[in-house]
């Protein structure tokens, strides 16, 4: 069975799977905004697939409950403190995602974790959840990314596109 077929809710379901890529973060707090910056880069990358939607999730997770409900796969991009070098990228999948969300760099993390938990409670959780985290350096007021995190952006875009191809070959 291919990954794409695996994304569908029921065996024999031939409907087109839907994949959402959501970048979270506060663009006013430097590297905190890496998720949103990645979405901007992905939208400018020329990648188009009718099954895939890129979403700037900004800072307000609970507003996304409606958008996230019932999707087949969800790829989150966010600043995550994993104790690595600034700009390093790390991938978490499924059960590791809620744990990793607690290491997020900002205070909206509880929001995202709670939205995911609420989707489970509503029995509308995504079939697959992947979190691509980027280690931040600077979380102070400012609209720009720090040099190591800005340098990581092209690699981050490539990695997200590879993730999309893996989930939707």
């Amino acid at each position: 069975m291919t990954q794409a077929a695996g994304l569908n809710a029921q065996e024999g379901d031939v409907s087109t799977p839907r994949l959402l890529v959501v970048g979270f973060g506060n663009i006013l707090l430097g590297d905190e905004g890496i998720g949103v910056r990645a979405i901007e880069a992905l939208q400018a990358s020329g990648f188009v697939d009718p099954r895939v939607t890129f979403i700037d999730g900004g800072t307000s997770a609970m507003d996304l409950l409606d958008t996230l409900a019932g999707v087949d796969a969800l790829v989150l991009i966010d600043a995550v403190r994993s104790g690595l070098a600034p700009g390093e990228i790390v991938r978490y999948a499924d059960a590791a995602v809620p744990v990793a969300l607690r290491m997020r760099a900002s205070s909206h993390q509880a929001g995202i974790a709670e939205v995911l938990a609420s989707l489970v409670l509503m029995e509308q959780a995504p079939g697959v959840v992947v979190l691509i985290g980027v280690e931040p350096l600077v979380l102070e007021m400012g609209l720009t990314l720090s040099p190591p995190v800005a340098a990581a952006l092209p690699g981050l875009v490539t990695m997200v596109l590879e993730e999309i191809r893996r989930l939707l070959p």
Partner: protein
Amino acid sequence: MTRITIDPITRIEGHLRIDCEIDNGHVTKAWASGQMWRGVEQILRGRDPRDAWTITQRICGVCTTVHAIASVRAVENALNLEIPLNAQYIRNMIVAAHAIHDHIVHFYHLSALDWVDIVSALRADPAKASALAEGLSAWPRNSRHEFAAVQERLQRFVGGGQLGVFANGYWGHPAMKLAPEVNLLAAAHYLQALEIQRKANKIVGALGSKTPHIQNLAVGGVTNPIALDSQSVLSMERLLMIKAHIDELAAFVNQVYLVDVCAIGAFYADWTAHGKGVVDYLCVPDMPLDTRGETFAMPGGYIPGGDVAAYHPIRGFHDPYFREGVAESVKHAWYQGDGKPLHPYRGETVPNYTDFVDNGRYSWVKAPTFYGKPAQVGPLAAVLCGVAAGHAPTVRHFNRVVETVGALAKQKIPLAALHSTIGRHAARAVRCAVMVENLTHNWQLLVDNLAKGDLTTCNKPSFPAGEITGVGFHEAPRGVLSHWVVIRDGKIANYQAVVPTTWNAAPRNDNDEPGPYESALVNTPVANPEQPLEVLRTVHSFDPCLACAIHLVDKRDGRVLGIGRS
């Protein structure tokens, strides 16, 4: 004497820390400390005032649209710019839908679990819970089958070790007093509220082009292209879809949310005696119904000393009574300055960190004052102002709550009972019901105005040479929000935002008077300092921004006691 600290896990973006001294089972002294908004001026200074709203709506992790609305209003106020009626109605609908979403989520998903014991709901008799619910409301989803299905779902969730959102509750805490059937009823409505809140968000998305972070505002109006017969823009078809969502929200708010607040409030009637705090209330009028911002669907004003007879109205966007009354003190905040309150146009934000000093500086939040006094803001202030102004929808829903709670608790509920922790929840439900009415009303006003052939949505701003100043205020879900802008030669020279949580979470002011949280916490009973559920109840009743990040840390060994569910 025990001292507890309730502290968040993260260090940026507006966290709240609460310190309490507890003696003989009661809070004797409290401090609210936070870090918010520091440095936003640096990002805005020198920018085009027409862009400020896109930046300000990114500042907060919870309230997005409200900072966009207040920001365009501030610039429009400085320019003395009139706003087309269509733009006012569309903005009003976004304001209402956002507020309804916020209030429903706050009650069910962020604070109900302070009062409702989910684990106890597993022991309830669904038939009894259904009989209780059907005696209170005509809501069709209160059947025995619905409640039994919810109980099964909870059982699967809890039994599977997947407590998820429920993992951090104080289940079995001595302050939890609801019968299992009431807990089941609340749990069922918790799940239904997850579904219904999505309708409110669909309205914000349909009108604002995007959610979170709306895209349709402009200084001077809105950018929604309107054509009643087109597929791609704001069409009659889309307006009818919005109306369908409004009707579903109205049913839920009137038949479920308001009723649940009454039921829970009646069972916890003793909490009308806790959490009083500052009783000088401030609210601003909102939902302008003309182009100049002089007539409003909802009144606002100032009530000193909790006395509705002393109500002083704020009459419009240009009323100097509000503009001249606001100042901020930094005597107990980590900023440079001698503590003399400064008007927001002259506001300074130069850091001066000193560590947490109980009688000195201990917060990144400045202490806002209205004519020199701290003020409580939020739905309670709005409802008291509505009652004082004789605002018919507020009075009607308020009377409904008083009668329902009185019948359930078998006692007469005086207006004074509102000055309390549970009173803030009741007022929020009343406010939400008023918002639903206004959402319907503004929808009708928009449709009628479009039918007249008026499709204008924006008046183009033009910026004069020299200096102009403006304030934009908005009665946001958490209360009075004001943005203050100084514009010099078409560029932002100074920008200050005085947010609702700043009013309520204020530290002591220049006269050492405590802020609303600090004052409300004094005398709150605490059965077990290791599990200060009662403190969370009172703080959560204000709907603090970003309380989702609250952790309970025991200062003695730094151990994390648990995560406040906010």
